[in-house]
């Protein structure tokens, strides 16, 4: 490999694109350029499958993150495609101006950079910085409409996110402190690949305290109840592409960070098993979000709560651990991000067609907008964990493997799943079926990203590529 380093490209491409986009006026060209940059990042990310550079002090690629980088760039690409048609409509209706659009595109790339960096970071400090960067960019994106509600959402996101990030940093410092007596001072004590090999000799009690901070810190970004408050509003008030990215990617990135630390704890036999904490928070999030779904009036907020619910399931899965639990968690992360972003794409078009986000003002979509309506139905079915979609497989593995060991927990999960499913069904049935309600504008929908996501999710329920399975199994073993 001479000259071309895909890892560097994955990072530099978005950054460079951000600089260019910040300078370009208009919206057609920047939108296309945005898509193009994302596509290029995706190609580079895919090439990581074949050329894995050795882990350095700052960056690395391994079985865990290679999947997530590709997922990240893929969803980034499809979201950019969706965003191109979405933003055009927003310009027409005057919700955004050209100046903001320039800012939007640049920020989009910076955000992609931040997330990619967080995923490939080998240094826990660098990872923290990257997550913070991604958070800050999404904050400004959420507030981009500058309506009072958007500003309020952004403000809430910002304050809660900042506190979370501070706690995560404190946890990171504690991890360093735990590593320092073993690995000595300096960079080495923050390099993840080094940490994991020596984790067994760290002070377990310090690691425990560190994990509490990391769980709460990154958990805030993940949106676990009761730290979730920013999430629904940020999803609901920002532009829909950003909602898709938030749910589909940013939550994953934060969770990924949490997973890295969980692996450290798993590698230390004396450390407190993080299971009970994660199980508790996961269950709380699942059931809480499930109940919150019932009284939502805003469609985007509805699906935002569904994201909380899924994050709860995923964190629960990792808490239960074991090869099947971890596998289920990883699969669920992947499938959720694909499905949820597809749902947000659909919802974006629907809200444009209906001119509102209020559930009460929508109805009979399968009749007025058959493609959007049925896609929403498919998306909801997929996200609810029904076959033939991929979430079904992960929930199948999770529930069945948990029940034999901890019947009460599995029963609680089943109850939570049912509560949430009932809510989604009750909420979405009048939207997609029944007599049409509200405005019925035609939209020029870009259905390709939606179908691509749903096709992948469908494939996930039927057939998983052996390579992916092997990686996940390897990672699942590391996760303990």
């Amino acid at each position: 490999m001479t000259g071309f380093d895909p890892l560097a490209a994955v990072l530099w491409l978005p950054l460079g694109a951000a600089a260019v986009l910040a300078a370009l006026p208009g919206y057609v060209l920047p939108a296309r350029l945005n898509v193009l940059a994302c596509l290029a990042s995706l190609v580079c990310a895919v090439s990581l499958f074949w050329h894995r550079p050795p882990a350095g002090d700052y960056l690395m690629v391994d079985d865990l993150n290679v999947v997530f980088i590709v997922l990240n760039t893929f969803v980034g690409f499809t979201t950019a495609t969706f965003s191109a048609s979405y933003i055009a409509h927003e310009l027409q209706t005057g919700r955004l101006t050209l100046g903001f659009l320039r800012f939007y595109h640049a920020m989009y790339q910076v955000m992609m950079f931040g997330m990619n960096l967080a995923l490939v970071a080998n240094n826990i400090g660098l990872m923290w910085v990257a997550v913070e960067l991604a958070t800050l960019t999404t904050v400004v994106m959420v507030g981009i409409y500058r309506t009072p509600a958007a500003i309020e959402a952004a403000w809430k996101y910002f304050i809660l996110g900042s506190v979370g990030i501070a706690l995560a940093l404190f946890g990171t410092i504690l991890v360093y402190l735990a590593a320092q007596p073993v690995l000595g001072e300096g960079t080495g004590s923050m390099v993840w690949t080094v940490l994991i090999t020596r984790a067994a000799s760290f002070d377990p009690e310090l690691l425990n305290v560190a994990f509490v901070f990391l769980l709460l810190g990154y958990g805030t970004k993940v949106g676990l109840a009761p730290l979730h408050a920013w999430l629904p509003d940020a999803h609901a008030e920002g532009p829909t592409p950003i909602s898709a990215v938030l749910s589909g990617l940013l939550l994953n990135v934060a969770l990924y960070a949490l997973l890295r630390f969980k692996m450290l704890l798993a590698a230390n036999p004396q450390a407190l098993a993080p299971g009970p904490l994660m199980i508790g928070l996961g269950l709380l999030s699942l059931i809480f979000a499930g109940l919150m779904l019932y009284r939502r009036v805003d469609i985007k907020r509805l699906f935002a709560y569904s994201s909380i619910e899924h994050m709860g399931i995923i964190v629960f899965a990792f808490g239960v651990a074991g090869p099947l639990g971890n596998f289920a968690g990883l699969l669920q992360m992947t499938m959720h991000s694909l499905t949820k972003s597809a749902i947000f794409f659909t919802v974006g078009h629907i809200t444009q067609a209906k001119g509102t986000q209020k559930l009460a003002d929508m109805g009979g979509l399968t009749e007025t907008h058959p493609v959007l309506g049925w896609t929403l139905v498919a998306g909801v079915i997929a996200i609810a964990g029904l076959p033939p979609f991929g979430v079904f497989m992960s929930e199948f593995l999770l529930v069945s493997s948990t029940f034999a060991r901890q019947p009460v927990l599995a029963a609680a999960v089943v109850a939570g799943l049912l509560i949430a499913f009932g809510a989604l069904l009750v909420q979405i049935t009048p939207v997609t079926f029944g007599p049409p309600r509200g405005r019925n504008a035609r939209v020029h929908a870009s259905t390709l990203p939606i179908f691509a996501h749903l096709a992948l999710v469908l494939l996930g329920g039927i057939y998983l590529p052996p390579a992916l399975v092997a990686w996940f199994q390897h990672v699942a073993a590391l996760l303990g």
Partner: protein
Amino acid sequence: MTALVVVACIAALLLLALAAALGARASRATPLVYGSTAVICLVAFSAALLGDDGALMLPVGLPWLGAHVRVDRLAAVFLALIDLGGAGASLYAIGYGRHEHAPHRVLPFFPAFIAGMNLVVIADDAYTFLFAWELMSLASWALVMADHRSPDSRRAGIVYLIMATFSALTLLLALGLLAATHGSYAFADMRAGELPPWRAGLVLTLALIGAGSKAGLMPLHAWLPLAHPAAPSHVSALMSGVMTKVAIYAFIRIVFDLLGPANSTWWWAVPVLTTGGTAAVLGVLHALMEHDLKRLLAYSTIENVGIVFIGLGLALAFRANAMPGAAALALTAALFHAFNHMLFKSVLFFGAGSVLVATGERNIERLGGLIRVMPVSAGCVLTACMAASALPPLNGFASEWLTFQTILVSPALPQWGLRLLVPTVGTLLALAAALAAACFVRAYGIAWLGRPRSACVDGAHEADRFSLAAMAGFAALCVLAGLFPGVVIDALSPAVQMVVGGRLQPQLGLPWLSIVPIADRSSSYNALAIFVFVFCATGMGWAALHRLGSKAVRSARLWDCGYPDLGPVTEYTAASYSQPIRRVFGPLVFRSSESVVMPPPGDMSPARISKRMHDLAWEALYQPVCDAVLALAVFFDRFQFLTIRRYLSFVFLALVGLLLALTLWQ
């Protein structure tokens, strides 16, 4: 080989579904799709009937396991049942489907629904099984939502899909427990497992809840009378006649096959018998109170499922006591009844569909006199009604007769609990059978006989020839299965042998085509002979009357004990028809009450009677859950409206709390 054919049929059905989704609005789509479905079903049916056992592994599904499919004798029986029902419904739908308002909401899901049911039956690992199970639920949900503009359909769809998911999750838990012993999701490994008794009992309970809620056992039936009627009639026939059988299959597969005889205990029969008996009686009582033709049929499905579960419970009891012969009798009765129910319930739903097409009405209080405008349909439906009422010489009686014979064997059971329970269940069964007859007299008498009660009957016309062919075909099968029960019993016996390790003696070799379940001495039944007798007796009676008696016939106005005819308004209504039975059972089962407002003497205003009935299962089981969830939702809703400071205090409290916990723990 059979496995391959069935898998190919499933694939073909799924492709057909896809094609239908893309081309549902084409002009000839309806006959094409239904015709192809019928052909594919027939292929699968003959493969199941003629084929051999075999297994297949497809490289999809769970990554490290693959999708296992296997056709064994049990699966073959249910495959035959599903595909026969599917073929009949498709044939019916070629005609019926022309009246569909929105064919694009039905056509794609219909083949998928049948494919899902087929796949459930041949699945040989937990993932494929549940995948197919949910596919079946989803497709049928979409069919229930076909008439999406009606609020009832939407409500039915919501309740149905939630209950279906509940049942799938319960089965998932059951299979998860089974899988835990060997850590493998393949059925082959589950069979080998030896479970601690409490675990096996838990699996049984979960399977009963999961499969039972799909089959419509009380009190988990709430979705069934909502969803079955909401779907188009040919789909109702499939859901009632076939899908409930798939649920029964699931129960047999898990409890009889996967749990295996080694794990079984006698008390398992207790919950199965109790729920079965309760469902049988309560189902038919609900049906008796119902005015909606299709809902009535749906409740009758609950009754029949209950009867099947009584058979299954008896089989469990006998198997646990190592009495394979008796267990075989019980299981044969159950499977036979399942098959019969598929036949007659399909005809009944087809008939209801034809009535719906002809009159646009499902409320029997507004029907009447249809026998004169739809004579052929009326004959088919009458046959099915008689079969459903367990009257000889039709098939429904044959299977109930077998069930009664099984109950008569049960004093040989060593457990006291069962000895007390079985006769009680026998009473329930007898009660259910008698009430079923009452129910179908009422349904048929009010809807098809008498004088038209509303104008909607005026424009009615006979159904089209495809519908008639389907109805007549299945009605003929009802008669044939009733006259030659031995054929069906013999066809079932390999499956019975596989599941409980015993079988009935071959029936076809017996003289005069009688069926003898246990021994010559104890009981035998020959439907053919009875039929011939009745036939001859009728002939003799007819001949004698026409030789000896007057042939004069005069048509005249109604006499009615001399009352002047006040028109069809004075006809007996369905509500008043069931009033005596409501008086007897209502206070207990429905907490029903009646109040009469009688005007004072001299006042010319009409007297009024009003009745109040409660659906106790809904009020005791579902309403509290709904209320609790909604109350919690309202309570938690306030967390959407807090200030940032309060949210921050959650973070703060979580942090302090966790740190405190950690300190205390360390």
